[in-house]
């Protein structure tokens, strides 16, 4: 079958509507409550209907890639924290594994397990924020505070293990920064026991709310081929029914030792790939992450977790494209080394950047309120979009 080169053409607006009014240009953002940061979307609207939406990014550009070329391999890690500041652990992890694979380095078992635990805890924290802010976008305020209540417990765990609550700088090349303190493992298990029943609470107040379903089902449908073509990844792509999770499909760390399911959207409330599906994938993924955390914490081996290599490393010349599954999707680091103390090039393939790029394709014809719902369901973090 010959595939179309512009799969989004199916969304293009048809012949002018007889009820059409004058087109109005509307600047949504960069100061707008629902753009999740400093994103500007230039809208062309016909009344409440959006004719075209053009994202303008770059307001948060912090020259990460330029910086990375002028600092040592280890110094890059705090910078990766600041890409997707809601899921910093996952960012550290991708970079660290990338460099380790270039150096052909083995990491202690315990460190690998700790990495998986913190990465999955961070995934839950990130999905919680996605849920809460999505509720805000739709107009429900209460779920937002519910999720922050539970995210707080995760942040407390992080504070205990690495001292920071937002930008952790915890996963280092060759290991982790600190071993888990006494009793931390039990606290993690305790948290998982506490957390799993709480998901039902979110479902009661938001997921299965009639108005919420009306607002999100059949809105902002991303068909699988459009999603893949636009490089959409993570929960946003799985919402379109594509079974693609790097933890399964391109395993890294010790993910292959755990049992968990890949959640895909099934179009329960409407069409496959609508905003409700994307939202639901995140909710269901929190169960899966909790499952992984439970297994990892129970199997956590004894031993040393600190990194085994000196701070000033030299990476053999070469290049590697390392991709990991962060809460937003496929986070890729394309690392080039010339054998020196500093990277020659670190390119970040940011999932939020690619996920956002699908917005102009699916926006035509939706209402302003739907556009807010779509942006929210893509779960972008502008720190990562702009880098």
């Amino acid at each position, binding site marked *: 079958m010959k*595939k179309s080169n512009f799969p989004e053409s199916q969304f293009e607006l048809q012949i002018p509507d007889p009820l059409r009014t004058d087109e109005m240009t509307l600047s949504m953002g960069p100061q707008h409550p629902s753009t999740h940061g400093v994103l500007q979307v230039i809208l062309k609207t016909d009344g409440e209907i959006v004719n075209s939406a053009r994202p303008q990014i770059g307001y948060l550009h912090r020259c990460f890639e330029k910086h990375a070329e002028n600092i040592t391999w280890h110094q890059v890690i705090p910078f990766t924290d600041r890409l997707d500041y809601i899921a910093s652990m996952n960012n550290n992890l991708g970079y660290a594994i990338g460099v380790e694979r270039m150096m052909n380095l083995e990491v202690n078992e315990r460190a690998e397990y700790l990495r998986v635990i913190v990465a999955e805890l961070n995934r839950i924290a990130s999905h919680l924020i996605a849920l809460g802010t999505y509720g805000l976008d739709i107009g429900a305020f209460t779920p937002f505070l519910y999720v922050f209540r539970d995210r707080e417990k995760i942040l407390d765990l992080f504070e205990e293990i690495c001292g920071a609550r937002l930008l952790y700088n915890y996963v280092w090349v060759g290991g982790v920064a600190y071993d888990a303190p006494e009793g931390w493992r039990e606290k993690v298990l305790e948290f998982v026991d506490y957390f799993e029943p709480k998901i039902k609470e979110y479902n009661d107040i938001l997921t299965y709310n009639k108005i919420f379903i009306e607002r999100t089902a059949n809105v902002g449908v991303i068909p699988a081929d459009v999603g893949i073509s636009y*490089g959409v990844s993570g929960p946003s792509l799985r919402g379109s029914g594509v079974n693609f999770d790097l933890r399964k*499909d391109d395993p890294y760390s010790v993910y292959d030792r755990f049992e968990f399911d890949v959640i895909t959207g099934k179009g329960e409330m409407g069409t496959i790939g609508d905003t409700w599906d994307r939202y639901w994938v995140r909710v269901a993924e929190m169960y899966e992450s909790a499952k992984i955390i439970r297994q990892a914490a129970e199997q956590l081996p004894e031993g040393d977790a600190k990194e085994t290599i000196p701070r000033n490393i030299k990476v053999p010349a070469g290049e590697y494209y390392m*991709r990991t599954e962060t809460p937003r999707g496929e986070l890729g680091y394309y690392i080039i080394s010339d054998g020196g103390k500093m990277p020659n090039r670190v390119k970040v393939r940011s999932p939020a950047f690619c996920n956002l790029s699908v917005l102009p394709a699916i926006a035509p014809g939706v209402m302003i309120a739907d556009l807010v719902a779509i942006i929210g369901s893509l779960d972008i973090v502008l720190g990562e979009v702009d880098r």
Partner: protein
Amino acid sequence: MTAQEIHDTIQGKFPDVIIEFNDSVLQPYIKCTPNQFNEVCQFLRDEEELNFDALMNCSGVDYGEELGVVYHLYSMTHRHKIVLKVNVTRENAEIPTVADIWRTADWHEREIFDLYGINFINHPDMRRILLPDDWEGYPLRKDYVQPQFYNGIEIAHPDMKGNSDEEK
């Protein structure tokens, strides 16, 4: 499909496109010429056995004498990967776009244009994406010198190399 088979398939269809094939590195790559690049990519995506429907990443690189663009391809159906590389000279930095094949390349190519100054021929919307439209220079090139002023605003940081007060 292994990298060798992918290479052979392309070689069979486009005999004079491939410059170099390296199977001994961590991630095997194929270096192509800029001409016919769009056709090669179209072939890679549409050929049943290859079916590279996802462009994972597309990044610009400054190799010193040359600039390059590196494409990381992945097939969702066959679960295989390949790396494509295209090099261009600094003076004549032009590569055919692949934004019509993988839509995600649209923004990635804009980013490369923004930071490396590589022009993508036939790109639907070749503008800067991260930096302001009136920014001068291409910051990720190795020979980039940071300007002192932007629209009359002093942007140089005293710690930056070549911008310290003593040298002024």
